[in-house]
C-alpha cells in the first residue's frame, strides 16, 4: 500500500501534502483536519486579517484547486482519535479506519488555558484558529476596552491592532517585563515603551485572580486587589503541543513528539512535523521545539522528501517575525543561553539590531526595522560567526564584512 496520511490542518500539513507531489509521490495522500476550512495562514489573524487587508480567501495556504490538481484528499471537520501502529491504521472521529504506509503527524499546538474563576465566561477568548479570530474581531470595537492577558507576541500584536482601530487596551503580564521568554531586558523595554507611547495601559508583575460579570460588562480582579472593567479579553499565555495522539500510540514525546534529523519519530513509518515536533538542531546542539511557520514548512519538505525515498536532513535556521504599529521585528536564531548583548543603531529611532552572543559567538539577532541586518544574520550566524563587540556596535561600517 502506498498511502500517506497527514494528521493536522495547519501550515506543516498543507505544505507536506503538496511537497509530496512535487517530490514525486505517486500513491494516495489524505489530509485529515479537525477544522472545517482548508489550511490557512495563522500569522495574519492578529494583524492583516484583523484590519481586513488580508481576506479569508487570501489566508488559504493552498487553494482548493491545487489540492484537486495534486489529487490530495482533504478530509475536513474530522479528527483522528487513535493510531494503531501494529496494523498501520488510524481511526477517524467518523468511525472510519484508514490504513497508511506512512503517517505524518502535524497536529500543532493548542492555546494554554487560563485557569481562574470566570475563565469560562464568553468574554474570554484565545487566538489560535480562524473562528477564534472572527470571534475576537467581532468583539473589539473602537469604543470597547480590550484586556490582553499575557505579553507575548500574540498578545502584543493584538494590542497593537486593537489600538489601531481606537479601542482602549490594557495588557496584564505576570512577569516583570514583556516578551521575557524570547528577548533580553533592553528589547522588552523597547516594546514596553512602544506600547505605552501608543496608549496601551501596560501592567507588569501582576496576576489575575478572577473575572466576573457586571451590569454593563466584565471586571477582572487582580492580585494587588485592584479591579479592571473591560468588554473582552484575549488570553495569550503560551501553547501546549498536541501530543496526545502520539503519546497514546506509544511514540516518544518530550515537549513535543521527539523526532530525528529526518523528522522521523521513534516509529519508522511515522513522521512528526511543525509546532508539535521536538527536533534536533545542529547549530544550537540541542533539541528544540519551535512555533514557527518557516520551520513548519521546511520540516514538511524534509518529511516529504524522505517519504519519497530522497533522504534529506532537516537543518534549517530558526527565524521569526512580528509586526506591531510601525515596527517590524525580524529575529534570526534563538537567544536562549546568551551571555552578552550588543545594540547596533539607535533604539530611540526604532531602527536597530540587538545581537545576542555566547562565548563571543553570535547566536541570535533581533532586528527592528533593519531587514538588511536580519538577512545577513540569518545567512551568516549558522556559519558560526565571531565579530567583536566594537565592530557590531559601529554603525559606520558593515558588521558582516
Amino acid at each position: 500500500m502506498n498511502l500517506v496520511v497527514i494528521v493536522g490542518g495547519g501550515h506543516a500539513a498543507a505544505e507536506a501534502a503538496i511537497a509530496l507531489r512535487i517530490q514525486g509521490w505517486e500513491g494516495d495522500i489524505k489530509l485529515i483536519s479537525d477544522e472545517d476550512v482548508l489550511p490557512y495562514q495563522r500569522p495574519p489573524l492578529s494583524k492583516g486579517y484583523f484590519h481586513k487587508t488580508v481576506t479569508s480567501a487570501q489566508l488559504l495556504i493552498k487553494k482548493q484547486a491545487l489540492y484537486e490538481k495534486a489529487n490530495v484528499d482533504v478530509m475536513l471537520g474530522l479528527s483522528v482519535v487513535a493510531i494503531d501502529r501494529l496494523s498501520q491504521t488510524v481511526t477517524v472521529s467518523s468511525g472510519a479506519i484508514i490504513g497508511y504506509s506512512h503517517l505524518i503527524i502535524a497536529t500543532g499546538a493548542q492555546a494554554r488555558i487560563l485557569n481562574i474563576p470566570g475563565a469560562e465566561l464568553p468574554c474570554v477568548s484565545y487566538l489560535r484558529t480562524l473562528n477564534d479570530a472572527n470571534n475576537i474581531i467581532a468583539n473589539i470595537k473602537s469604543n470597547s476596552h480590550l484586556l490582553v492577558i499575557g505579553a507575548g507576541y500574540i498578545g502584543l500584536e493584538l494590542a497593537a491592532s486593537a489600538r489601531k482601530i481606537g479601542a482602549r487596551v490594557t495588557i496584564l503580564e505576570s512577569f516583570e517585563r514583556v516578551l521575557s521568554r524570547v528577548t533580553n531586558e533592553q528589547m522588552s523595554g523597547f516594546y514596553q515603551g512602544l506600547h505605552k507611547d501608543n496608549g496601551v495601559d501596560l501592567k507588569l508583575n501582576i496576576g489575575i485572580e478572577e473575572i466576573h460579570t457586571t451590569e454593563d460588562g466584565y471586571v477582572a480582579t487582580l492580585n494587588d486587589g485592584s479591579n479592571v472593567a473591560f468588554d473582552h479579553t484575549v488570553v495569550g499565555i503560551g501553547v501546549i503541543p498536541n501530543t496526545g495522539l502520539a503519546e497514546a500510540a506509544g511514540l516518544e514525546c518530550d515537549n513535543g513528539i521527539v523526532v530525528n534529523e529526518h523528522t522521523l519519530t521513534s516509529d519508522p513509518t511515522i513522521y512528526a512535523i511543525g509546532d508539535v515536533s521536538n527536533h534536533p538542531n545542529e547549530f544550537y546542539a540541542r533539541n528544540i521545539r519551535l512555533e514557527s511557520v518557516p520551520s513548519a514548512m521546511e520540516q514538511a519538505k524534509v518529511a516529504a522528501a524522505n517519504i519519497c525515498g530522497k533522504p534529506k536532513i532537516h537543518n534549517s535556521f530558526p527565524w521569526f517575525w512580528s509586526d506591531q504599529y510601525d515596527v517590524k521585528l525580524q529575529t534570526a536564531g534563538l537567544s536562549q543561553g546568551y551571555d552578552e548583548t550588543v545594540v547596533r543603531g539607535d533604539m530611540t529611532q526604532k531602527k536597530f539590531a540587538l545581537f545576542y552572543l555566547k562565548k563571543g559567538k553570535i547566536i541570535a539577532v533581533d532586528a527592528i526595522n533593519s531587514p538588511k541586518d536580519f538577512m545577513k544574520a540569518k545567512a551568516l550566524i549558522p556559519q558560526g560567526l565571531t565579530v567583536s563587540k566594537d565592530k557590531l556596535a559601529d554603525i559606520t561600517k558593515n558588521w558582516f564584512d
Partner: protein
Amino acid sequence: MTIIKYVDAENNVTEVEAETGESIMSLAVNNMVDGIVGECGGAQACATCHCYLDNKYAKHFSEMSEMEEAMLESAPQRTETSRLSCQLMLKDDTPDIEVSLPSSQY
C-alpha cells in the same frame, strides 16, 4: 487569458493563468512552481519569493517600497531587476508577464 511565465535558473518554464487579486508569489505557490517559496506568506519578512522582473514589465506593478528594497538589498543573487514576487499584484489589466527565478531562495 493572461499568462504568467516562470523561468527557473535551468530555463524550465512553467506557464500559469493569471488570477486578478493574486500576487506572482501566491500564483506560483498555488501552481507548484518550485522556485518560489514564500515562507512568510507576503509579509515582506523573508525574501524567499525573490524573482527577476524585466524593466519592460515594471510599469504594470507598484514601485518598490522601502521595505522591499531593504529586504532585497541582502538577498542572495540580487540583481538590478530583483523584486519580491509577493509585492507584484495581478490586476484585471495586467498583460502577459515573464519572470525569472534565482537558482535558490536561500
